[in-house]
């Protein structure tokens, strides 16, 4: 269930790295915890964030959660389809439910690999 090629933040965002380009989303575990999503608030193109900065928020009927930048980055594209169809994040968190595309401007060393994240998610599930 957890894609091997991605990096993960402890706050349950994933980062796909392709050179200096990246894609950010939330994990399957995170969307499952929140339940049926009703709204995704995303930043604008050109916004810059340091790792750990809040870059958006996500809501379900019974919960709301902030999302944090897994890495220093500048936003180059946002997934506008989520405005009308937040359920894409539930249905396909690692695919159609991506949140933002970014230019990576900082190190990724602090992020978890798939195995470490799997362990973290298993712990939090209890």
């Amino acid at each position, binding site marked *: 269930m957890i894609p091997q090629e991605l990096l993960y933040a402890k706050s349950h965002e994933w980062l796909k790295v392709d050179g200096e380009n990246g894609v950010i989303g939330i994990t399957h575990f995170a969307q499952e915890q929140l339940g*049926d999503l*009703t*709204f995704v608030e995303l930043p604008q193109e050109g916004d810059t964030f340091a790792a750990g900065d809040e870059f958006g928020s996500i*809501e*379900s*009927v*019974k919960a709301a959660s902030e999302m944090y930048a897994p890495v220093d980055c500048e936003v180059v594209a946002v997934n506008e389809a989520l405005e009308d169809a*937040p*359920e894409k994040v539930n249905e396909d968190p690692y695919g159609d439910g991506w949140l933002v595309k970014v230019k990576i401007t900082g190190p990724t060393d602090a992020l978890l690999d798939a195995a470490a994240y799997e362990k973290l998610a298993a712990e939090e599930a209890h």
Partner: protein
Amino acid sequence: MKTVFEKSVPGREGCWPEEPKSKIEDFIPTELLREEAGMPSLSELDVVRHFTRLSQKNFGVDSNFYPLGSCTMKYNPKFTEQVAAMPGFAKLHPVIPQLKGAGHHCQGALEVIHETESMLCELTGMSAFTMHPMAGAHGELTGVMLMVAYHRDKGNKKTKIICPDSAHGTNPASAAVAGYDVVSVESKDGIITPEALAEVLDDDVAGVMMTCPNTLGLFETHLPELVEMIHAKDALLYYDGANMNAIMGKLRVGDAGFDIVHLNLHKTLGTPHGGGGPGSGPVGVSERVKPFLPISRVEKLEDGQYYLSYDEPKSIGYVAPFYGNFGVYLKAYAYMLRLGGEGLTRATEGAVLSANYMRKRLENHYEIPYNRICMHEFVASAVEQAKNGVRALDVAKALLDKGHHAPTIYFPLIVKECLMIEPTETENKETIDRFIDDLIEIAEMAGKNPEALQAAPLTTPVKRLDETKAARSMVITDDIK
């Protein structure tokens, strides 16, 4: 059921005033005017029948047991409605006492404010009250603003407010909207311990907001020690009066050392909840916080006349346009007069007795996470039932089919599958017993036929509603399709 807009028939006459002699265009140029406003056209009977039908789709205290935890859904005595409707009160323009020479035209109303404040002071042991806050959360905001003013006056640099993890969400929200950072203190065995408080209590703390008994229905047994610790840091101790129905005549928060308190008159003092408001959230303070109370204050002269004082140099200013929800606290005043000191104490005793009786009768059927003597409410949990797939939500919906309003569910957040039950003192033993019997039957059904409970409610005007669809489609007016 169709909306009033769907039922509208253009030209149908309702309750119209006489026909004007002129047109609005005779007074105001057309370019400053609008087209039709889109209000519905209905006959008076159309309107009466529509809203009568709507009312029949509601549970209320008059028709159903309403053990909604933390909301104190007690019976609202009918005569208080009559008091609020007396023309001498209902027709009074709020500006009158502010006019020169007009103060003697509203002496009765000013006396109501003065007397209500005095009685609330005696009830709580506080030095002074303001009636201005218009709801509990509004009282909280006023209270936190008082903290700001107090510390500013003393030259204190304070940035934080502490709220327990069991607090109502309004506590941290009120602290935050007044500009403070919020720090949470973890409860141990359901209450705050001096050790846990010591971990977060430092010199930056402006105040600590407590609910006592707390939202688990438990008394804070370390209270005297906590008060001492908090005052040693020159922090103010705030009492959230949501659970005041548990302590009338048994504990006065002023005597216990609280500096600021808000009451929810719509909970404790029997004024109706109105389907979500209007309420009344007066705030009481200790002597040292008194100079900061909102403007205006009702004062009494030696000759027995009342007047409004605006000369309050240290005041936080205005939190309401006038004197708060006068028409609401008038009912609370009438309620206090009716019951007197002894009656209020009996109300508290009845509420605590009923809650404990229910807790005891339920203990072999539901998990009771903190199963000891509780105050006016207690928390049960459906964790056992959840193993069969029956969650607190399902229990709540099944109760609706039995004709009871559901308890508060999923609050406080620190208890899983939480059912927070507050019977109040006004419900008789038969009602309480029937509710308990129904809850026990639901617990038994959870083992045998969980699907039936998951399908509830079946007897209400609608079945379970799709909240996700509502939030995604956001159809919040009739004009959005």
